[in-house]
C-alpha cells in the first residue's frame, strides 16, 4: 500500500502468463494499481516488458490469467477499457502522408469529441506549434514522439500505457514527459510505464514490477 493508494484498485492483473513459441516470457505476474499510481515495469532486454504491456492493453491474449479494469474483465468489456486507455507503443502510429494535426484529429476523433482548439492546445503543450501542418514524414523521430505525447494529453484517457516514452527525446522532451506524468497522476490518472532509465516522478506514488 502506497501513500497515494486511495480507493479500490482500478487496474488489476491476476496470474498472467505468456509464452512465445517454446519460450515462457513470464508467469504469475500479478499487480494492482489504484488511482494516482504509476507502475514502473523494469527488466533486461527481451524479458517481455513490451509483451506484458500488449497483454495489459488487450492486443495479445495471455495463456492464463486475466486483466481487470474497474473490477470487470477487460476481455469482456473491451470498448469501455479502450475508451479510458491511451497506448503509446514503440512505433509512433502516425500516417506519414498526413500532417501531425490530421493524424490527431483522426485518432482522437474515434474516442472523444474534441474541437480543433483542443488539439492545437495539446500540440502547443508538446512544443509543436509550428509543425502542426507538416506531414508526419518530414518530422524528426523526436518530434513524432512528441505528437504521440500530444495524443495522450488530448485523449482524456485515465490510464496511460507508455512503452519507452523517453526514446528519441532531447533533455527538454524528457522533462516534459516527467512533468506530463506527474500532472496526470495528480489528476488521479494511472500510468503503466516501461522505461530503462529512472524517471523523474515523485516516489510516493510509484510501484515497481521486475520481470525476468
Amino acid at each position, binding site marked *: 500500500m502506497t501513500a497515494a493508494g486511495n480507493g479500490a484498485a482500478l487496474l488489476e492483473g491476476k496470474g498472467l502468463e505468456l509464452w512465445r513459441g517454446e519460450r515462457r516470457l513470464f508467469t504469475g505476474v500479478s499487480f494492482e494499481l489504484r488511482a494516482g499510481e504509476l507502475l514502473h515495469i523494469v527488466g533486461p532486454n527481451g524479458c517481455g516488458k513490451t509483451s506484458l504491456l500488449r497483454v495489459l*492493453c*488487450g*492486443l*495479445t*491474449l495471455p495463456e492464463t490469467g486475466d486483466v481487470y479494469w474497474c473490477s470487470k474483465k477487460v476481455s469482456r468489456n473491451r*470498448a*469501455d477499457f*479502450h*475508451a*479510458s*486507455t491511451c*497506448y503509446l*507503443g*514503440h*512505433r*509512433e*502510429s*502516425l*500516417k*506519414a*502522408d*498526413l500532417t501531425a494535426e*490530421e493524424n490527431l484529429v*483522426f*485518432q482522437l*476523433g*474515434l*474516442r*472523444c*469529441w474534441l474541437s480543433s482548439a483542443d488539439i492545437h492546445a495539446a500540440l502547443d503543450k508538446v512544443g509543436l506549434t509550428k509543425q502542426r501542418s507538416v506531414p508526419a514524414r518530414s518530422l524528426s523521430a523526436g518530434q513524432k514522439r512528441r505528437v504521440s505525447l500530444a495524443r495522450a494529453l488530448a485523449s482524456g484517457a485515465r490510464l496511460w500505457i507508455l512503452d519507452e516514452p523517453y526514446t528519441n527525446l532531447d533533455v527538454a522532451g524528457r522533462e516534459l514527459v516527467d512533468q506530463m506524468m506527474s500532472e496526470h497522476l495528480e489528476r488521479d490518472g494511472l500510468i503503466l510505464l516501461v522505461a530503462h532509465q529512472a524517471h523523474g516522478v515523485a516516489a510516493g506514488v510509484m510501484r515497481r514490477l521486475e520481470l525476468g
Partner: protein
Amino acid sequence: MEWPGLGTAFWLQLTRDLRLAFRHIGQAANPLMFFVMVTTLFPLALSPAPELLMAIAPGVIWVSALLASLLAAESLFRQDIEDGTMEQLALSPQPLSLLLLAKTASHWLMTGLPLVLMAPIVGHALFLPAEAVPATMLALLLATPVLSLAGAVMAALTVGLRRGGGLLSLLILPIVMPVLIFGARATDMSMQGLDVSGVMYLLAAVLLLAVSLAPAGMSAAMRISLD
C-alpha cells in the same frame, strides 16, 4: 465514459483512407491500370476480328477484373500494420469490424468502382455489343464489392506473414469463383439478349452475404494478426 457513435467512426475512417489514397493516386490507380492494360492487350495480341473478340469479351473482362482486385487486396492493410496505426484502431473504443469495413469501403471506391466505370470503354475495345454494357456494369457493381470484401478478410489473415502474397491469392480465388461464374454469365446472357435478372439476384445475394459476414471475419483475423 462515452465516445462518438458508429456513423462518425465510419465516416472518419473512410475519409482518412480516401485522403491518403488521393495523396498517392498513382498507387491507388494501379489495379485500374492493370485492368485496362490486360483487356486492351487482347485485341492487339489476338487477331482483331470482331466475332472472335466478342466471343472472348465476357471472359476477358471478368478475369481481368478479378485479377485486378486480387492485386489490390495485397496492399489493403499492409501499410497500417507497418506504421502501427492498426494497433491504435484495435485499441480504440470503436468496433474493429466497423473500422475495417470502412477501410474496405474506401478501398473499393478507389479500386473497384473505377473498374465499373471503365467497363464501357474496355467493352468497346473488345467489341462488346452496346446492349450488353448496362448489364455488365450492373454485374460489376454488385461483384466488385464482394471481391474487395473477400480480399479484405484474407488480407487481414495473411498480413502478419512475411510473404503472404502467394498465399493470399490461393485463399481468395476459391471464394470468389462463384462471382466470376455469375458475372461472366451475366455478360454472356445479355449479349444473347436473354433475361439477366436471375443472375443479378444471385450476385446481389452473394453481396449481402459478404457484407454481413466479412466484417466479423476481418476483425477476428486482424486480432490474430496483431497478436
